[in-house]
């Protein structure tokens, strides 16, 4: 039985559902317990699971990320919430050096089944320190997996999969989507990590995106349909591992590709997708892969500047028109 709930509720259902099944799972982070979460994602979890499993922390990201890693090495299954991924930089050594490498460094002796989750991307005029898109920064590192849900259904399914996964998984959420509603089954379910989904079928151009910008791609596709350009929109769902096969299969059909990545352009998820599509579809492509990113500048505060910096339907339409121009 499925009903309409918010993105934040879907995240909570994934956590609570798994916690009921598995006593090894706990949630730790700033304000997750008594405050119900800075963004109310963990509302009510303290009452249900108590202070031993829903744990408020000091403002010590290195401390509690590392604590989670140690607990995971002992076989527990921590969910570590970063109020924002923007605050994970102070814990970079723990999340990039320890979590994803412990299994390797120990010759396979110590698994780190941990989930790091929190808000990623522009939250709305939060300025340069608070608007990080960490996907391109962190996805470079082997040993970690990365998922980035774009709606409530995916939020529950991907976070559930992340919690059950034996490896470290980074779950990138978006403050701007937490109140978005959608159909979500009551029972628990998993969406396989590393599998993309086709959001809209189309014959003329493949648009690949991840997380919140997927919605801008859908807008753009509607707009472009009016112009007779029929777009296929792919939601990657996972960034690492990347489901390149779904993308290349689509590009072999459309012969055109635009990748939309909310992070900065240089050495990004977008450049990875572009490079790989060219590799696998070199002879199928009518044009080089076009990319839409945030401008290569720190996030500004001013409303008009931030709006101009971020990817949007207008920019996506322009890119698709350009890539399909002489196709």
């Amino acid at each position, binding site marked *: 039985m499925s009903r309409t709930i918010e993105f934040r509720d879907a995240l909570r259902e994934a956590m609570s559902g798994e916690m009921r099944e598995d006593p090894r799972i706990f949630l730790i982070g700033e304000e997750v317990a*008594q405050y119900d979460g800075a963004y109310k994602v963990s509302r009510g979890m303290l009452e249900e699971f108590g202070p031993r499993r829903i744990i408020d922390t000091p403002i010590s990201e290195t401390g509690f990320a590392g604590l989670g890693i140690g607990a995971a090495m002992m076989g527990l299954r921590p969910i570590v919430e970063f109020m924002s991924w923007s605050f994970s930089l102070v814990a970079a050594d723990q999340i990039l050096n320890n979590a994803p490498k412990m299994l390797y460094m120990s010759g396979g002796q110590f698994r780190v089944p941990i989930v790091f989750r929190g808000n990623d991307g522009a939250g709305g*005029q939060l300025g*340069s*320190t608070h608007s990080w898109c960490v996907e391109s920064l962190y996805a470079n590192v082997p040993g970690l997996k990365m998922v980035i849900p774009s709606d409530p259904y995916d939020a529950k399914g991907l976070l559930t999969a992340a919690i059950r996964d034996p490896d470290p998984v980074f779950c990138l959420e978006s403050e701007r989507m937490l109140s978005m509603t959608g159909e979500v089954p009551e029972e628990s379910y998993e969406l396989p990590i590393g599998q993309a989904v086709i959001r809209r079928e189309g014959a003329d151009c493949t648009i690949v995106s991840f997380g919140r910008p997927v919605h801008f791609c859908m807008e753009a596709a509607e707009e472009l349909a009016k112009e007779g350009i029929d777009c296929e929109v792919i939601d990657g769902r996972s960034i690492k591992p990347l489901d390149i096969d779904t993308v290349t299969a689509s590009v072999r059909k459309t012969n055109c590709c635009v990748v939309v990545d909310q992070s900065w352009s240089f050495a990004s998820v977008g450049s990875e997708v572009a490079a790989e599509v060219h590799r696998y579809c070199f002879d199928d492509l009518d044009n080089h892969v076009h990319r839409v990113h945030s401008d290569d500048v720190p996030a500004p505060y001013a*409303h008009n500047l931030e709006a101009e910096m971020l990817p949007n339907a207008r920019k996506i339409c322009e890119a698709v028109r350009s890539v399909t121009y002489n196709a």
Partner: protein
Amino acid sequence: MLTDQTTVPSSSRPSTQAHANEKVPLPGPEVLVKWLRDMKLIREFEVRAMQAYQNKLAGGFLHVYNGQEAVAVGCLAALEPHDPVITAYRDHGHALARGLDPKVGMAELFGRIDGCAKGKGGSMHFFDAPNHMYGGHGIVGAQTPVGAGLAFATMYEDEVINSKSNSRVTLCFLGDGALNQGAFHEAANLAQVLGLPVIYIVENNRYAMGTAIERCTSSAGSLLHKAVAYGMDAIEIDGMDITKTYPAMKALVNDIRANPRPAFVDIDCYRFKGHSVSDPRKYRTHEEEQENEANDPIDNLAKFLMSSGVMEENDVKTMSKEIRTEIRAAVKWAEESPPPDLDELYHDVYVDKWGPYTGTSLPKFMDESSGEKA
């Protein structure tokens, strides 16, 4: 066997206290009146800022300083104009007390080109070079090593480059919650090892967001132990009564200027409003709030000035009116200031203009004369 009590009596306080003060007198009445004006101006600025925020004139996060005004005004009054100041994201009070024009601050909140950071910084990132205000920093604790660097530079300029003796003292403000960021501890140890003239002022408003200090910050009864861990001088100061705040800070600043080294201040205060405008404040009782609001630093000084005959009730009223007018004008001025030109996106990324990133070519350095750089 070991027990908490025997080891660290929970009431224990390092012997620092006693020796804190060279007796510094209060300044003359005109200065005290100015302090009252400064505090009222900060309060009024933020009351209007909150309204503007509700009306969507300002965006992002808005953290207001209501209740802590005596800290910024009292501490900064102890400085010389050229002393560097740096703080966290709850920064309007510090910037204004340091001399920022309210209308320029308001324009920043509105994301306008006339703002102190051209609208690029916002509430959390107030910077004001002419007044030696080094921000406005959004990441908890991240300003504390930077603060050590400001002090390092003052000393280096004076002693190494100009071979005279150190002349400046740096104030680095942080919240009580920031004591739990590793950055602070690395900065404190470095400052002590290098003997830097920086004073770390912990604005102890007893909460980090929704978390009461007892729930997140362990210490043996007194926060001063955090400084003793580095052999750093440390004192406690009352931050709700500026007639106590100023003399204690002034004595400390004088001492540090004369004998350059770091120091630590645990300054007691209270955050009247929520952590940010969106905070429902379920984590504390209404009684607690009322109790503390009864100890308003602005009323405290006003009462002091009236009881000591410096001001009449009417003078205070008039002052309030003037300030209300000034801030209303600031709001109007800020509203009329234009948003930044979109081209501003590509300025200040680097010293030379950078970009734009067009999606069909990499960003490049551009000549200000709008063509690409040779």
